[in-house]
């Protein structure tokens, strides 16, 4: 008797690529042998999960090409099967995996490209939420605004790469004409945003990066602006804050926060 628990465990091991003679012996074979029948399932699991990764990491696939991506993704799939069925949430560990994936060692920027793809995927699948607008703050005195601690809207993220991954992203879009990118051109800071109907990213300066990183850590806008000045004496908080409001980068204030902020000294 092949208990169902044992059968499912053996099938799982077969999909991971292990020989499972007891499982094979339990399958009816004829002109199509049992082993060939079992392989239909293993191949589909590998290929469909690799395809899901390709959909989540389209820029990585464009950079390395379909064949290399598939080989890399299959290796990841076998070593890191999903823990739940929502495939858009599968692949959180793929950037780290790529960083340690030896066949891709000649492409040191590839893991950061994967981090960008993943951040865009997370943003796309975040709720829109209610965004902070300039009008929400118009009743506050200046010192009240400076005393606010804001949070990025859902899906919002900032990150720095030592490589020009924004330009790598651009030349990897379908239908983009050939253009060479020099990695020595330097790195980039990016702000990732969930917008009404899509996810998007925009380049930000080092001072803006410092400002937003401080905001993310819970600093008041005043302290965040100080962080910006420390990076760049010419930092302009007006331009930056105005731009971030226009981008709807911040979540709306929690009810009552604006009121208490207005009492700040």
């Amino acid at each position: 008797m092949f208990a169902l628990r044992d059968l499912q465990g053996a099938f799982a091991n077969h999909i991971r690529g292990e020989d499972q003679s007891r499982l094979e012996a339990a399958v009816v074979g004829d002109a199509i042998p049992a082993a060939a029948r079992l392989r239909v399932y293993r191949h589909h699991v590998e290929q469909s999960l690799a395809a899901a990764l390709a959909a989540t990491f389209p820029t990585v696939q464009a950079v390395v090409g379909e064949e290399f991506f598939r080989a890399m993704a299959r290796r990841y799939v076998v070593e890191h099967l999903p823990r739940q069925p929502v495939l858009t949430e599968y692949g959180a560990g793929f950037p780290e995996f790529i960083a340690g994936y030896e066949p891709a060692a000649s492409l040191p920027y590839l893991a950061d490209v994967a981090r960008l793809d993943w951040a865009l995927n997370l943003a796309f699948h975040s709720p829109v939420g209610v965004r902070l607008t300039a009008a929400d703050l118009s009743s506050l005195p200046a010192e009240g605004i400076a005393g606010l601690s804001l949070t990025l809207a859902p899906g919002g993220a900032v990150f720095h790469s030592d490589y020009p991954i924004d330009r790598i992203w651009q030349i990897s879009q379908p239908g983009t004409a050939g253009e060479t990118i020099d990695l020595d051109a330097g790195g980039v800071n990016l702000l990732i945003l969930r917008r009404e109907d899509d996810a998007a990213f925009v380049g930000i300066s080092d001072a803006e990066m410092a400002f937003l990183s401080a905001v993310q850590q819970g600093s008041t806008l005043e302290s965040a602006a100080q962080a910006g000045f420390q990076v760049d004496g010419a930092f302009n908080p007006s331009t930056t804050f105005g731009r971030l409001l226009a981008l709807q980068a911040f979540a709306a204030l929690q009810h009552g926060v604006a009121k208490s902020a207005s009492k700040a000294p």
Partner: protein
Amino acid sequence: MRTVAGIGLRAPHLAEIARDRPATGFLEIHAENYLAGSPALQAVERLRGDYEFSLHAVGLSLGSVEGLDEAHLARVAALAERLEPVLVSDHLSWSVSGGHYFNDLLPLPYTEEALEVVVRNIQRLQDRLKRQVLVENPSCYLGFKHSTLSEPTFLGELVRRSGCGLLLDVNNIAVTAHNLRLDPLAWLADLPAAAIGEYHLAGHAVNDADGEPILIDDHGSRVSEGVWSLFDSVLQRYGPRPTLVEWDTDVPALTILLDEAVRADRALKAWTGTDVRAA
């Protein structure tokens, strides 16, 4: 729900459907595509005024011996509450073992032990959703030597013991029958008619397995003539039901998919009045 044909709603068609609101019986979505929240979910919600929806889950793993994943179940239940679908379904298969998710509809041995497992899982699902669910016959590429029940007998027992309904996938019947050397008409002969709540139609591919043809359920082409003919037999035997055309691989222009649904509609109309549910 009207016994007309609808289409599986796929992302490449979403903008066009939102703009043109083409006439079709209903729209079916894969639950797991809409659990993470995205602009696509908002777009689907905006269609609810014009279309009825059915919710087709692909990852509940009704055949898992370790039981349902409660966290996943809760997300599916929340989506069902939000969309208020007319029908909810998943498959007679399993995809979870040891907490790992294998993205496939893996086959079950048709034994008393498996029957008890699937009945328990369906009961849990129906309790959680507070409604009947439909269970779909899968495409099979293998059978187990220790199976003691036929697939249709197994499905009939599921209905009797759990109160679930059935989603008959006509293409899957054809694929399974070919691959496991069964007679599709015999497969069809003795299902609990009143439990059948939906039909699925889709295309399949023919692959080579060590020199032998094997049918693969790839949902990547028009419904084959053989499956249309089998659909006629299904309608003759059980009468019309809400019918869905699915297309997932190499998704075609929307008009082609709608065209397939029109053909399904013609077949359904030819058998209207022979609905055995009324008998």
